[in-house]
């Protein structure tokens, strides 16, 4: 009835098998409970497009989509994601849903070192799937949790703004 097995308490580092759908593929991994989703994606699944920055939820380099919503991979444990659908920057790239955002970032030099870019793109993708024509202020608000140490944001905001405009002129999202 309780569902809780007391022997769990005896070996805290014992690994568990977790299953999720990552970038459209079913995967299973063995993880210790203390491994974050970020560790699991980068180390076990070798999806290194998801970047590890602060590992504290402050920089936004580790954003992924979990069941369709942007979340910080450093702020959850892989065991918590058991059964979830995850899309990383690799998956979003392969599927082509952010191709126009990527092209616009490229065109406008909205990156220098590129460390922040995967998180910026995941965030921009989320914003544009919720608000068709965000104001520059909305864009800045949405990016408030993403640190870029190189570009000063202007080109990033320009790129997102341009894509929003182009998409809405085409009549909606992708």
């Amino acid at each position, binding site marked *: 009835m309780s569902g*809780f097995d007391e022997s769990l308490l005896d070996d805290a580092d014992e690994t568990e098998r977790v299953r999720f759908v990552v970038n459209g593929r079913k995967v299973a991994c063995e993880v210790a409970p203390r491994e974050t989703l970020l560790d699991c994606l980068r180390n076990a699944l070798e999806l290194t497009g998801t970047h590890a920055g602060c590992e504290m939820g402050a920089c*936004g380099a580790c954003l992924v989509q979990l069941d369709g919503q942007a979340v910080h991979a450093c702020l959850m444990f892989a065991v918590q994601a058991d059964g979830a659908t995850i899309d990383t920057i690799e998956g979003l790239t392969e599927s082509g849903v952010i191709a126009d955002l990527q092209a616009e970032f490229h065109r406008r030099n909205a990156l220098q070192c590129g460390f922040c870019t995967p998180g910026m793109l995941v*965030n921009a993708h*989320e914003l544009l799937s919720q608000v068709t024509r965000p104001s520059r202020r909305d864009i800045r608000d*949405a990016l408030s949790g993403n640190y870029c140490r190189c570009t000063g944001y202007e080109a990033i905001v320009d790129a997102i703004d341009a894509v929003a405009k182009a998409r809405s002129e085409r009549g909606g999202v992708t």
Partner: protein
Amino acid sequence: MKARAFSYFRAATIDQALDAHARAGDDARFIAGGQSLVPALSLRLQAPRLLIDITHIAELRGVRREGEFLRIGALTRHCEMLSEPLIAEFAPLLHAAAPFVAHPAIRNRGTFGGSVAHADPASEFPAMTLALDAEIEMIGPSGSRRVKADDFFVDLFETALQPGELITAVFVPLFKADQRFAFDELARRRGDYALVGCGMLATCTGERIHDIRISFFSVGNTPTRVKGTEATLIGSSLGAERIAAAQAALEADLTPPDSDEVPPAMRLHLARVLLGRMLGRLGVGG
């Protein structure tokens, strides 16, 4: 940095969560959105033996009317505080506060119950439960109880929650036609914790205030109701003189903490400025 090793248990029901906590003793933590707990574990500020995941407990979800209250399930996410029509209609102060809580991706996971339980004095929602005269419902080994927000926040990160007790829902009195509200905060950057923030709920007849509850955050060890200031506003309408009197009264109600970054006198000044702006808007019905 990495959390110290722990065991993980995903609870499907409240009973399972309480039972697991009881059997692990004080050494267990519930995890909801994890947006405050995971950083605390990574920094090893906390190192429990057992993490009990409560996010799959259906009983903790949902927002619905219950008599004179809106019942907001503990697992209601910050992003739902923005999107849920019942919140916008019956708890508009919470709806107004939600965009100021952290950043979009954090709002996708962080929960209302987690924010109230965590009781960060710089957080928006705990302070708003005070302004709203909300009641916090919790359940523990010795049953379920409801505590008024006025009695819930005890000290820095300390609440009326006893070890092993779980917040199930927050009950907010339904917003009424003769009420007005205001929310605002001063922060260096949108999404950052506020230097000072405030929410208020007033009951009025025409321009006359019958009742007002004003709650500040980021100005002390707990969310802070300013009862002396409230008293200066009751029974009158909101002219410039009345607003100035309320601003003057703040000094006796607030004891801002000493910090190198924001000295107490500056924080008090910011609180006065914020109060003046918000009462001004309230006077014109905003």
